[in-house]
């Protein structure tokens, strides 16, 4: 699906498909710049490759220096770690691997779920410096894709492009005056939508437990305190000024009551529970089909 008349630059990066839509073709130089940012990000944060920066910490305790944007991730994860009482954590990687979602895509549980290690026990993260006192599997996926969306938006703005849509397979940032109609995918049927939002000059992100599933009750949104997949919520959507915040908050909605998040963040939200009922903030009023 594309924007009528717009040019689309499509590529794969950090495990998903990207589409960058602009009114005019992007020059080769800008395309190369975008791909460079994606590669840098993957090489820094991927837990699916041996040569990434964080892979060092999975092998042995130590300190690594992350890219400049790491400070924003640190602040965001720290806040959400506290608001969720440890349920949302960048240390969830080992719990995911335990359930089979590791670099080898074994997709077979290695045993009973294990909680993520406690941040205060193993991790010291301050800006671009991150130290682990034991081997840890970091997974910053909950906010990472969103941050990369924001980083690519910066590249586009730096190149003088004011109107664009960066779409990382459903997590997206829109810039421009013309609103974009976006369908909210039905959590139980990808050929259907449950509503439509109009997105203008902001980010829309989704988190869903419906697709990345690999077995009986196994999916990728885990409670860090237990290491188990969350069963009560099936899909969430958020809008916020940045994709990084929208992305992280979409995951946080699985574990935290929205009013708790609303005390610290400016965002709109829609939460669909596994029994099919939904709750939403005023920003999503009127978007659901009735």
């Amino acid at each position, binding site marked *: 699906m594309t924007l009528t008349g717009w040019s689309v630059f499509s590529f794969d990066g950090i495990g998903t498909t990207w589409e960058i839509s602009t009114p005019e073709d992007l020059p080769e130089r800008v395309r190369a710049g975008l791909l460079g940012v994606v590669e840098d990000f993957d090489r820094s944060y991927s837990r699916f490759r041996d040569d990434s920066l964080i892979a060092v910490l999975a092998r042995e305790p130590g300190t690594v220096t992350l890219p400049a944007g790491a400070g924003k991730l640190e602040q965001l994860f720290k806040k959400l770690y506290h608001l969720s009482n440890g349920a949302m954590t960048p240390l969830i990687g080992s719990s995911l691997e335990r359930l089979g979602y590791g670099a080898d895509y074994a997709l*077979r549980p290695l045993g009973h779920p294990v909680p993520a290690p406690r941040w205060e026990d193993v991790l010291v993260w301050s800006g671009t410096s991150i130290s682990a006192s034991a081997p840890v599997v970091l997974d910053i996926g909950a906010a990472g894709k969103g941050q990369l969306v924001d980083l690519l938006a910066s590249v586009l703005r730096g190149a003088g492009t004011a109107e664009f849509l960066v779409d990382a397979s459903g997590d997206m940032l829109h810039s421009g005056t013309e609103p*974009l109609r976006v369908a909210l995918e039905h959590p139980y049927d990808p050929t259907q939508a449950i509503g439509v939002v109009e997105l203008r000059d902001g980010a829309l992100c989704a988190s869903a437990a419906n697709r990345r599933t690999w077995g009986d009750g196994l999916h990728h949104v885990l409670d860090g305190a237990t290491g188990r997949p969350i069963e009560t919520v099936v899909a969430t959507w958020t809008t916020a000024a940045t994709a990084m915040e929208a992305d992280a908050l979409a995951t946080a909605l699985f574990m935290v009551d929205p009013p708790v998040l609303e005390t610290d963040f400016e965002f709109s939200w829609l939460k669909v529970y596994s029994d099919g009922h939904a709750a939403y903030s005023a*920003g999503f*009023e009127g978007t659901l089909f009735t």
Partner: protein
Amino acid sequence: MTTPLRKGLLVGAAGLTLASSVAACAPSAQGSTPQKTSSISGPYKDGTYSADGDYISPNGGETVGVQLTLAGNTISAVDITVHANNPNTQEFQGQFKNGIAAQVVGKKLDEINVSKVAGSSLTSEGFNKAVETIKSEAK
């Protein structure tokens, strides 16, 4: 969202006045929780009524929908629905109004006019291949 029963009996001056006063104290009002009951004059049939009310905010004209439940000439419940177009107003009204849908309703994607879909539809090839492998091994 809740579907208001639009019986339209209160769409006259009384309905609008009430809507305006509810909107005026917006920040402290609670969405769908029962409000303090208050007597109203005149014989009204018991039931649920709704009306839209207009008010002037610093952003210009805005509309809220108000749904009342009447029992024995007493207001037993008030439910407020926002129709804000202005983002600032949406945020302001959002402080007191969150919504609930009893059940989400699906429509076919090809029957609605959209440019994009937000969900988690696409996953990496590696993941998808691994799932396919497991499925084939399980047969």
